[in-house]
């Protein structure tokens, strides 16, 4: 009878795939993926590296290092690399959905196979059988106690027994009874629906062991029973007793479980170090208890290491060498991380390595910075280590200052880290002149650095067939002066880039094109870019959340195909370009339609705010074509014959539609499209001109110890000093205009005082009231240290006071107005 050895396998070291955070999580556009190549990961694993980023994860940088040092991945390694990337990135939902189309799991195979034997002692397991268990002690952590291949192997063995003896043979039934007992220890034993109101929870069930059998039992069943008992103890977390049981079986060379039981001694020790509170370094308890547990953890793992090394040297254990080596890796990761990092690096460079995927996972575990006391500090590769891989990955990651927090404040590395890494990289490059260190040196270089000319020369010598070519070429062009010669070189490579590279890489080359564009039209053609991803996690950037929206004019925005403004373009429109160029941009066919309308609206609003009626008039056809509802409002404005009329009609036009705003948006367009209120009050504007993207306002109440990143984006080359000076004057004037609610309310109240009998005045007051109720509020500042609001509560610009004033004006002077009837309370 051919039975598979039933073996509770360790499985891969599983990382916690980040759970979704709390929060609504609206999608936003990511133009350059900071942490991984995204998209077609197989292409990346085949050597299409694109532009490497400092923030790339370990598993992606390993691949890059291999290709650049001419150690390409074997096809099976490429597949493993893709699988590992998916394992880390795929959501729980995606994994669950994939399971539904996958072959039946070992668990479900056991349930269905077990059903062929029928109920035993009135018991029949079903899909509710618990496989997870809590770690011991005061713990809030569960683990998968019974892994899927344990069920698969049990199902295989039961099938084999049933074929040999029949499913209702008494021995088979007894074997199955024992196996039921084993698996009943998989869970804590707490029923899911545990109690009703007012009742105490039941105590956890004691371990359930298969019964001892009489000596008259067939030998095979006695041998299986001994194994089942030891396994039950293992799953019941009684590791000392499990080890005793496995040792006894291991010395019984007649038992078919002898070899695997020897192996399971080490497994039991390792399991004990991860789930038993007396042996874990991260258990709860007093400091003395935790210190004792940490000591227990280390000595248990050391014992496991001894056992495994002894097994490795024992020819009897030859059939389990792979499993033994896997466990030794697990132990060595924790006991001797620096040495193990080098072992892993060497394996990862070897095209014969069969467990390439597991080695990627292990190296990632070593390098990941988590606040896990069990985890040793990330290793630093020795200067002369054969692979050099660790040092290279360390240095590249230390260049990374991509914010990992939503507000852009939290940086993974300080300026000192970057400076240290840069110096280290330059030293490696000057010593080796290897392409792999050239890549790192280029990534860390600035145009004015002394070494830059040397790097540029070396970069020019890298041929297009080299896997590093795209990264090297991008940085060479980035470091060259922004002149026509550089632009010619850029335009020469762009067609190839567009044809072969992914969106994230292409967007970076387009940004170079944008920065060197010699004219407005040439620049406009580069400003709309397709996002590389739509994400809800700034620090993941790879999730794609389909969202079908429309822009202000009803043009469909389709993720993955619709162009949006990246930060450099939005900054330029909002802060660097005078109004006349904004208007010219809106009239240019070089912009895609959805972006033209954004620009046209921004130009119109600014024109009215800055009292430039000719620009407003030029934008009118675009806006009316976009939304005919603008027509009467803009007609009234354009037909105004006096400054007062223009003022009045301008205010009424701007207040009519909630989507009206004086700037263009970086990334996603307005969620609610035209005129519809946003429930989070993103209506009209809170600030007329956004701060430059790439710099972030400080959040004094919490993050004062974190430095905001300063990465100012270059202004477009074609802008003259006259242009930028004009823009600066206009922006200064716009920045003096407060939030829409405050602006319109104060303007309406001023108008009312001067023109109380104007028939439009109640409309002005009413519309201002509507804006106030649905837009940004001006509140008193809040001091987190004293827990109090500061400032003068009588400040007339506070929203609450403006609301009072508008309400009083309407009710006092215009009691019959429909606005007065509509607004029965002041707020």
């Amino acid at each position, binding site marked *: 009878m051919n039975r598979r050895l039933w073996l509770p396998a360790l499985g891969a070291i599983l990382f*916690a795939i980040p*759970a979704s*955070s*709390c*929060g*609504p*999580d*609206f*999608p*936003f*556009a990511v133009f350059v993926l900071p942490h991984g190549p995204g998209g077609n990961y197989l292409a990346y694993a085949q050597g299409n590296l694109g532009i490497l980023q400092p923030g790339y994860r370990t598993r992606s940088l390993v691949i890059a290092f291999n290709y650049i040092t001419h150690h390409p991945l074997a096809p099976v390694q490429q597949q493993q690399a893709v699988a590992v990337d998916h394992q880390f990135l795929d959501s*729980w*939902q995606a994994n669950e959905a994939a399971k539904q189309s996958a072959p039946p799991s070992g668990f479900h195979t056991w349930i269905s196979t077990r059903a062929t034997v029928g109920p035993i002692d009135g018991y029949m397991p079903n899909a509710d059988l618990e496989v*997870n268990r809590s*770690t011991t002690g*005061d*713990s*809030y952590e*569960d683990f998968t106690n019974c892994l899927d291949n344990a069920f698969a192997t049990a199902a295989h063995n039961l099938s084999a027994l049933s074929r040999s003896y029949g499913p209702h043979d008494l021995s088979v039934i007894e074997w199955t009874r024992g196996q039921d007992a084993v698996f009943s220890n998989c869970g804590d034993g707490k029923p*899911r*629906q*545990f109690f009703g*109101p*007012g009742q105490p*929870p039941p105590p956890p069930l004691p371990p359930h062991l298969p019964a001892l059998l009489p000596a008259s039992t067939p030998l095979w069943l006695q041998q299986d029973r001994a194994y089942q008992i030891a396994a039950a103890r293992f799953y019941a977390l009684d590791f000392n007793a499990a080890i005793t049981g496995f040792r006894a079986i291991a010395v019984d060379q007649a038992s078919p479980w002898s070899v695997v039981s020897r192996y399971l001694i080490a497994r039991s020790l390792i399991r004990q170090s991860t789930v038993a509170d007396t042996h*874990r370094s*991260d*258990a709860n308890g*007093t400091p003395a208890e935790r210190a004792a547990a940490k000591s227990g953890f280390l000595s248990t793992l050391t014992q496991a290491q001894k056992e495994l090394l002894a097994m490795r040297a024992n020819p009897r254990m030859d059939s389990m060498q792979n499993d033994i080596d896997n466990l030794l890796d697990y132990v060595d990761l924790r006991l001797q991380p620096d040495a193990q990092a080098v072992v892993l690096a060497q394996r990862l460079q070897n095209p014969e390595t069969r467990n390439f995927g597991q080695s990627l996972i292990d190296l990632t575990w070593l390098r990941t910075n*988590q*606040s896990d*006391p069990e985890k040793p500090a990330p290793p630093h590769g020795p200067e002369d280590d054969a692979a050099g891989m660790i040092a290279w990955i360390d240095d590249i990651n230390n260049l990374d200052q991509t914010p990992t*927090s*939503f*507000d*852009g404040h*939290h940086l993974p590395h300080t300026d000192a880290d970057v400076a240290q890494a840069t110096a280290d990289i330059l030293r490696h490059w000057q010593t080796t002149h290897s392409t792999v260190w050239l890549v790192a040196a280029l990534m860390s270089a600035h145009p004015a650095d002394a070494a830059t000319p040397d790097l540029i020369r070396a970069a020019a010598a890298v041929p297009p067939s080299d896997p590093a070519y795209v990264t090297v070429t991008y940085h060479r062009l980035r470091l060259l002066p922004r002149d026509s010669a550089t632009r010619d070189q850029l335009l020469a490579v762009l067609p190839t880039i567009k044809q072969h590279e992914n969106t994230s890489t292409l967007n970076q080359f387009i940004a170079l094109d944008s920065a060197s564009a010699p004219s407005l039209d040439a620049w406009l053609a580069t400003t709309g870019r397709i996002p590389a991803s739509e994400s*809800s996690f700034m*620090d993941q950037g790879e999730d794609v959340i389909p969202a079908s929206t429309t822009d202000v004019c009803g043009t469909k925005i389709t993720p993955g195909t619709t162009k949006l403004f990246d930060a450099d373009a939005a900054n330029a429109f909002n802060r660097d370009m005078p109004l006349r160029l904004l208007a010219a941009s809106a009239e240019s066919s070089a912009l895609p339609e959805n972006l033209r309308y954004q620009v046209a609206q921004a130009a119109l609003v600014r024109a009215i705010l800055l009292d430039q009626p000719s620009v407003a008039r030029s934008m009118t056809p675009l806006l009316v074509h976009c939304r005919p509802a603008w027509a009467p409002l803009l007609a009234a404005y354009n037909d105004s014959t006096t400054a007062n009329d223009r003022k009045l009609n301008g205010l009424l036009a701007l207040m009519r539609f909630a989507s009206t705003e004086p700037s263009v*948006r*970086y*990334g*996603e367009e307005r969620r609610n499209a035209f005129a519809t209120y946003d*429930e*989070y*009050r*993103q209506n009209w*504007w*809170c*600030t007329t001109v956004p701060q430059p*993207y790439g710099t972030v306002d400080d*959040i004094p109440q*919490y*993050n004062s*110890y974190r430095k905001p990143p300063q990465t100012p984006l270059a202004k477009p080359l074609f802008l003259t000093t006259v242009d930028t000076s004009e823009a600066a004057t206009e922006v200064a004037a716009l920045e003096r205009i407060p939030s829409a609610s405050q602006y319109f309310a104060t303007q309406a109240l001023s108008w009312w005082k001067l023109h109380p009998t104007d028939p439009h005045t109640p409309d002005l007051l009413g519309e201002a009231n509507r804006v106030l109720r649905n837009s*940004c509020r001006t*509140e*008193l500042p*809040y001091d987190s240290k004293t*827990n109090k609001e500061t400032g003068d509560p009588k400040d007339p610009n506070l929203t609450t006071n403006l609301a009072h004033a508008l309400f009083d004006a309407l009710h006092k002077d215009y009691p019959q107005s429909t606005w007065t009837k509509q607004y029965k309370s002041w707020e």
Partner: protein
Amino acid sequence: MLWAWESPEDLTTLDPTKTGVAFLSRELLIGRTVQVRPRRQPLRLATNTWLMAVVRIETAPDFLPTTDTIAETASDIAALAQQPGVRAIQVDFDATTSQRNFYAAVLKRLRTQLPSGIPLSITALVGWCGDDSWLRRLPIDEAVPMFFRMGGPAAIRAIRPKDASLAREPLCSGSVGIATDETWPAIHNHQRVYVFLPGSWTQQDLAHVNALGYHGLRGDSLR
């Protein structure tokens, strides 16, 4: 209250007299059946830390609100109260409009299964906390409006400061959810503050929390 999410957390230096911990205990994925994903990461706490167990609910594409999924969801959540030291339960579910009836049914059933003395909290989208809120019908003790992740980078700049007056529903007014990497709305003395930090809490973060002057951070003022 600090939200301790799915990362290894060492909160042993947090001052338990001032700040409690709302830890992610499990996730439920609701399709035609309910899949449970328990917490897989260690959580280390100072002695006597006031604990709230949080369950995050996600729905699968084949989500089906049936009496079975309602019952199973409620009992899976109720089981959290069994964990050592847990004093309250919080449910984190960004229910869509069409899922609200399901959510309400789960909470009603859950309320009957929880022991008396275990408060029931939920997180809330800020938009749920306006006038005539659907939350008013729910048998909950608080709804925590989450003033973060309310839009991309453009939105952060558009709303400054965050508008606390959006949360007019009384169930929402007693607490506020904030994130360490975004701006905060005005926070009032009587409010319980829940703080989210992306990633694991560092010792520096915890020292800063210990130094904050907020009242009501400890959970036992929930009832």
